[in-house]
């Protein structure tokens, strides 16, 4: 027997030992450690997102207001790119070689750069550039074009209403994991409010790729793929012709126009000026234009129609009249004298020249300040209430029942809430029991701390037109595939004034237009009910305000017009509202001189 024969066991032992170690190792990396399975997915799966086009926005008559246009992202795969004619590519893209180099450097330094993944070199190329590029693309190996859609606005109007679309930022991604870097999201206006419906649903196709990132085929024949769902089209309540006209008429003014259909709460027109062409904020142009708009001192990005809080001026007398009637402290026949003003103790409120004394109708027709100072005192000093505080509370409740002083809860974001001062506010300001009706007499004529948005005012006109109720104003009347819009827009909201009291106020408003402060806006054959306002404010000349609805019976449109620092309500706001009503109800405009005057106005010298 060989003396070293037993060494066979050592050798066999080494073999077994090594294989055992390998088995342990295999067990560890294959069964225990999950790391490698994830890495394998990252390696071999490529998710290609299918971006759906956003839903269209149509006007109430079916005209497309917001559509889509194709845009093209130029992508390249760093591993696949072969040397190419840089001069030609630069000339197609319309850039210099240095800019191209700079782009490459930017891409390389960007977060998440990987030489194995497609990188966006240029985003949102125009169709023209794309057409030129497409012909030559075969020469550029490793370059691809991906189609995206951008917004296209058919009319250069209603920018504030539509809002705009932009790339998501990290806060959006954190809030909603649906979004990924490079996705678009509605940032303001309808685009933001109806983002979920407009955006549709991204789809994803999962492909298997090889080490060079070449697509080898769909994973499991597409079993895990999802198709993109197109965004839902929306029919808005906007009347594109009316909106167009309103923007044209307002172009020389700072201010706003809001028109509502009283019988439904549908917003027919919503203008805030100065505005901007929504096309300025589409695609690549947005990067350049947005800062310009943002720095403009006239605040073109600010939606005055929804957010700005103005003193309502004399238009608020309508509400005080209604409250007085409801509280039984004044009656249609109640008269007060006026001697170009009203004085009580140290307080003096001016008024203009008009017949005196006036009854309720006459006070609306002529917008008498003295009448409302008296009426307001009667409301607040009503012996029915224990204290001024209680009476004020009751008054405030009436006011807020018109939706004033709070968000109307419409479907457009960016709404302001205005201001109706609370009891606490006065208690703090004057001290408890240190204020009376006289202290806050400016509320009688819509001045003081009172603040209403143009939307509030238009809604107030709609309340009066409806004789006591309103629908929450909204801008979308139908969403594709849904039978109804949100229930809150189809429920009547009643004011706490009985319907009977509206008649006399409506009569007064009709007189104001036919033979009062707003006769400038009178149109033959259309009974307009309106009320002018001239709101004193700390920013200069008075705001010119007008609210109205027409026709008197079965009103079809309620409007509020604000012209900042425009002076008397009758000067600018009345003719603008009047022309809009004529256009909306008859489809044409007959008063050339009036139109020309407004189009040529130049009041901010």
């Amino acid at each position, binding site marked *: 027997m060989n003396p070293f024969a037993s*060494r*066979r066991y050592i*050798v*066999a032992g080494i*073999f077994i030992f090594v294989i055992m170690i390998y088995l342990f190792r*295999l067990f560890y990396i294959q069964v225990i450690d999950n790391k490698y399975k994830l*890495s394998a997915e990252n390696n071999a799966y490529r998710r290609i997102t299918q971006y759906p086009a956003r839903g269209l926005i149509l006007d109430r008559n079916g005209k497309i207001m917001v559509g889509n246009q194709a845009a093209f992202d130029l992508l390249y795969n760093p591993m696949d790119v072969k040397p190419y004619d840089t001069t030609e590519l630069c000339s197609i893209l319309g850039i210099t070689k240095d800019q191209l180099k700079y782009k490459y450097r930017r891409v390389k330094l960007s977060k998440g750069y990987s030489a194995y993944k497609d990188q966006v070199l240029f985003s949102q190329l125009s169709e023209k550039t794309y057409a030129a590029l497409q012909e030559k693309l075969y020469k550029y190996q490793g370059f691809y074009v991906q189609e995206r859609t951008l917004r296209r606005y058919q009319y250069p109007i209603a920018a504030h209403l539509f809002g705009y679309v932009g790339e998501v930022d990290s806060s959006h991604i954190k809030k909603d994991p649906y979004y990924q870097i490079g996705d678009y999201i509605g940032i303001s206006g309808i685009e933001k409010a109806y983002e979920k419906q407009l955006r549709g649903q991204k789809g994803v196709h999962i492909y298997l790729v090889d*080490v060079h990132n070449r697509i080898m*085929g769909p994973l499991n024949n597409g079993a895990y793929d999802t198709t993109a769902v197109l965004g839902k089209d929306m029919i808005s309540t906007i009347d594109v012709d009316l909106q167009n006209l309103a923007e044209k008429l307002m172009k020389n003014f700072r201010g706003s126009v809001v028109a509502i259909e009283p019988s439904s709460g549908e917003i027919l027109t919503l203008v805030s000026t100065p505005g901007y062409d929504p096309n300025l904020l589409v695609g690549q142009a947005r990067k350049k234009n947005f800062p310009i708009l943002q720095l403009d001192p006239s605040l073109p990005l600010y939606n005055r129609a929804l957010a700005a809080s103005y003193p309502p001026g004399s238009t608020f007398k309508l509400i005080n009249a209604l409250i007085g009637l409801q509280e039984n402290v004044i009656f249609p026949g109640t008269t007060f004298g006026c001697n170009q003003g009203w004085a009580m103790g140290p307080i003096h409120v001016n008024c203009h020249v008009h017949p005196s004394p006036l009854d309720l109708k006459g006070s609306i027709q002529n917008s008498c300040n003295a009448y409302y100072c008296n009426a307001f005192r009667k409301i607040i000093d009503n012996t029915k209430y224990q204290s001024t505080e209680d009476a004020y509370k009751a008054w405030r409740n009436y006011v807020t029942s018109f939706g004033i002083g709070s968000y109307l809860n419409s479907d457009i974001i960016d709404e302001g809430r205005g201001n109706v001062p609370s009891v606490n506010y006065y208690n703090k300001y004057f001290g408890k029991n240190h204020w009376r009706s006289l202290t806050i007499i400016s509320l009688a004529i819509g001045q003081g701390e009172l603040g209403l948005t143009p939307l509030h005012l238009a809604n107030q006109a709609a309340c009066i037109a409806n004789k006591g109720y309103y629908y929450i104003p909204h801008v979308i009347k139908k969403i594709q595939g849904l039978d109804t819009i949100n229930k809150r827009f189809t429920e009547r909201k009643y004011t706490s004034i009985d319907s009977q009291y509206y008649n006399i106020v409506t009569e007064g408003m009709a007189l104001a237009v036919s033979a009062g402060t707003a006769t400038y806006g009178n149109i033959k054959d259309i009974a307009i009910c309106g009320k002018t306002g001239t709101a004193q404010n700390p920013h200069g000349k008075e705001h010119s305000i007008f609210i109205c609805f027409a026709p008197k019976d079965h009103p079809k449109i309620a409007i509020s017009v604000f012209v900042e620092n425009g002076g008397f309500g009758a000067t600018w706001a009345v003719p603008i509202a009047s022309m809009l009503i004529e256009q909306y109800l008859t489809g044409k405009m007959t008063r050339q001189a009036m139109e020309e005057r407004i189009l040529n106005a130049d009041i901010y010298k």
Partner: protein
Amino acid sequence: MIRRVNIWQEIDWITVLLYGLLVIFGLVNIYAAVYDDRHQSIMDLSMRYGKQAIWILAALILAMIVIMVDTKFFTFFAYFIYVLTLLLLLLVAFFGKEVNGARSWFSLGGLQVQPTEFAKIGTCLALAKYMNVHSIKLKTFWTMLRSVLPMAVIIGLPMGLIGLQPDMGSALVYVALVFVLYREGLPGIYLFCGFLFGAVFVFSLLWSETPQYMIMMIFYFFVLSLAFLNRKIVEVLAALIVYYVFLIAINLWNKYTSFDASPYFKHLFCLGASVTTVACMSFFKKILHIWWVIGLLIVYVGFGYGVTYFFDHGLEKHQRDRIEIFLGKKYDPKKVGYNIEQSKIAIGSGGFAGKGFLQGTQTKYNFVPEQSTDFIFCTVGEEWGFLGSSVILALFLAFLLRLLALCERQRSTFSRIYGYGVVSVFFIHVAINAGMTMGLFPVVGIPLPFFSYGGSSLWAFTILLFIFLRFDASRMELLR
């Protein structure tokens, strides 16, 4: 006196069966590794599996020819075959076709042959022939050295020539023949120390950027040396416990205070503490060969740092690059460690039961380099999972142990030594190849026997194996 037997009856069919299974599994996995939808027939000759099928048929014919040749042919021509191989290696090193930076291919018409693979046969035969006559003399160290030297030359010559190509991986295979010397009487300590120094050499270069691993490895070698020379469990346990208690303590201290030590310093400190403890223990009780152990430790450390220093300062850049290629550090230009990471991802993503035949994504889509040749084990790991890879490893183990058993039943020294050569070569191929794909060994490109795509290696392994089976079949012819 010679007794004639029927060769076909005496062939060890168990080994042949294992061989057959491994070859078939290899073909199936090559099919999976290069599979694509356009070429689905396994006999498609434009694809690697089609070609491999041809190589397998040819290998079977070769095997039959080998079986039919008389054993005397191999014993008689052993040196001749050896010298012929050396000539071929010399020729290929200078006139061969360069692939991946190494001249290891002869291009004969359309056929490419890798003499490196065949050199193992000649070397094993020559070693067997020499050692059949000359045994290892153990009288003194010097007589032993003198008797081993010619054997070392027989092993070293092809190794050196292959190193010239340079194909370090294939050269490394010859180190396995130390098993043959061990079996024939070389004291175990040389096997042990040789292994450790080889490991220190490789890993000190491999881990030059993370020296803490090197310190850890040296610590384990210290423990192993202690165990090997002293053969008492107490000191080994003491060394281990001291090391890890100190390591945990330092890490905790690190975590809860502002003290911040580099990992290298931590391990060095623990190593020092552990060695000091063992040294102190030797004052109170006799620890066999303690000074040998500590001497070895110092030599390990010195050797490790010496290698690193020599590598950084004593070598030209191109020489460094060669060695780095050998270590797998620069195997791939993309980045160091890319291949090994991809290989681990492929195997690891297989999970317990695998992704299923042809369902592997990592190997099929070329994330793993050389997936049909050197990294074929990844395909097994990815598509057949832990179950499949275990079965394959178990098959290889069964194959090796069977060969070992065959070796020990040989009546002639020649065939036993040759058999040990064969089994050593197979073992080191399996160990290095599988270890490399799992990240346990540097990436050196050597094939997995019978599995990897390639005619030369399949034929060489087949001839290597069947010469031994031929000897085994006729073992009864030699009567003692």
